[in-house]
């Protein structure tokens, strides 16, 4: 359908002479341990990332929706990371986390976690997730804020008149109405995370060994360092297919006929 249209538009990428072999590659990948390891990393990275961002984003959005003074200043501040290059933010966090002189590492040291080495597994991945979330949570927050602010106020007022508690209001009124926005934001971020590259490159270059390599990243490694072009492209395309499937599935499930 639309997907095959899309595929043909990029036929130049499969126009390599190993195209024949390419099909065999698609089968071979399932036995490559590196792929499955990377798939694991990708999975953790993506889902942890999206979850953190949604929860934190929602929290921030709720805070902002109360329209306290200073809210607009805060809004301006937190939107900054979105405009910064992911590369920049990657290096920033790497600096903060460096064993001896990183500010974050030092703070942890003082608090009591002696001498944290945050650039090794299992912490590295979480540092990357942290950096990514730091950059993108504001985006989630702003989208959710827009959604919250567009909620019909009469419904909320009616509930308040009925004496509903804050937590109940959240659960039964706000969240369901936000369902559409949440889904879209979830999808957008999930896709971005699945493709993620810049942050990983700048913080750990795939991690000690392959510890923080996502599928996207090992495709890169395969290509640049191992020169296994066929494999690299295969993996990259697998990622594309996965992403598309994810999107289509989610769209159907949440949107029904539209899109």
């Amino acid at each position, binding site marked *: 359908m639309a*997907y095959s249209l899309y595929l043909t538009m990029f036929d130049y990428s499969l126009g390599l002479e190993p195209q024949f072999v390419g099909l065999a590659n698609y089968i071979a990948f399932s036995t490559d341990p590196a792929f499955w390891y990377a798939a694991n990393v990708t999975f953790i990275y993506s889902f942890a990332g999206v979850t953190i961002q949604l929860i934190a984003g929602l929290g921030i959005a709720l805070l902002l929706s109360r329209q306290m003074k200073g809210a607009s200043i805060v*809004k301006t501040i937190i939107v900054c990371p979105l405009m910064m290059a992911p590369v920049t933010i990657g*290096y920033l966090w790497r600096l903060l986390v460096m064993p001896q002189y990183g500010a974050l590492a030092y703070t942890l040291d003082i608090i009591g976690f002696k001498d944290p080495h945050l650039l090794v597994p299992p912490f590295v991945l979480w540092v990357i997730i942290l950096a990514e979330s730091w950059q993108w949570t504001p985006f989630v927050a702003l989208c959710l804020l827009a959604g919250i602010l567009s909620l019909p106020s009469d419904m909320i007022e009616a509930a308040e008149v009925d004496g509903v508690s804050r937590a109940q209001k959240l659960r039964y009124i706000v969240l369901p109405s936000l369902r559409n926005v949440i889904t879209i934001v979830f999808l957008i971020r999930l896709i971005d995370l699945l493709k993620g590259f810049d942050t990983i490159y700048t913080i750990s270059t795939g991690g000690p060994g392959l510890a923080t390599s996502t599928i996207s990243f090992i495709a890169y490694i395969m290509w640049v360092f191992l020169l296994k072009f066929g494999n690299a492209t295969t993996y*990259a395309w697998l990622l594309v297919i996965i992403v598309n499937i994810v999107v289509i599935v989610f769209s159907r499930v949440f949107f029904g006929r539209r899109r």
Partner: protein
Amino acid sequence: MLMLVACIYILPISWGVLTSLKTHSQIAGPSPVLFFAPTLQNYVDLFEKYDFVLWLMNSAVVATTTTLIDIGLGVVTAYVIARFNFRGKQNFAFWILSFRFMPAVAVVFPLFVLFGYLKLLDTLVGLIVAYVPFTLPFSIWLLNGFIEEIPGELDEAALVDGCSRLGMLRRIILPILKGGILVTAIFTFFLCWNEFLIALIITRQTTRTMAVGYTMFVTAQQIFWGDMFAAVTITLIPVIVFMWVLQKHITSGLTLGAVKG
């Protein structure tokens, strides 16, 4: 509570800026230094030791050109999509959107081969050619959202009055669309400015963009944090300026896609 959030965001950035004012031994010493005598040596180094200006220029040129092309093509395409109903419109829309799903990794290798063949490697033109297909769909999507906000009756009224399609576009739609175009332009600009992977692969010394430039501070022996953050601070200035001036527009643009759906 909100203060906490603000702090979480200000602290790392200010640390970065502070770092740009330190000497290397202060940065990479046994423990982080909070109070120190600032030095501007890093900034000087930027211009002397590195091709900083070149990187900036490259990024600026590529980003601006791509944005201009995107807006030019985007407005027309978005208008067509918004106003006309043609067969397969849903599919076409999805196809355009699907570019966003594309991991750069998948495209980078073929791009490299193709450009090598076309002698487009390490050229600004090549970069622009690479960036436009990537950013155009996104621009079209955004612009489409904005155009849909404009009632179709406006078009019809103008047509009835004897205006040509093109003239109407220019004289009526465009002025109304200005805010939307601005938002889209900013997004596209930053998308190109911050783009990393493709630039990494396609550029060499002459056309290196800012994003790749940051990696130049990382050598095998050590990372020149001070210089790097001097660069970061400098590039941070336009970001902050943009943010401050255009805050309202950006918020509406960002959320437009999400809320409208």
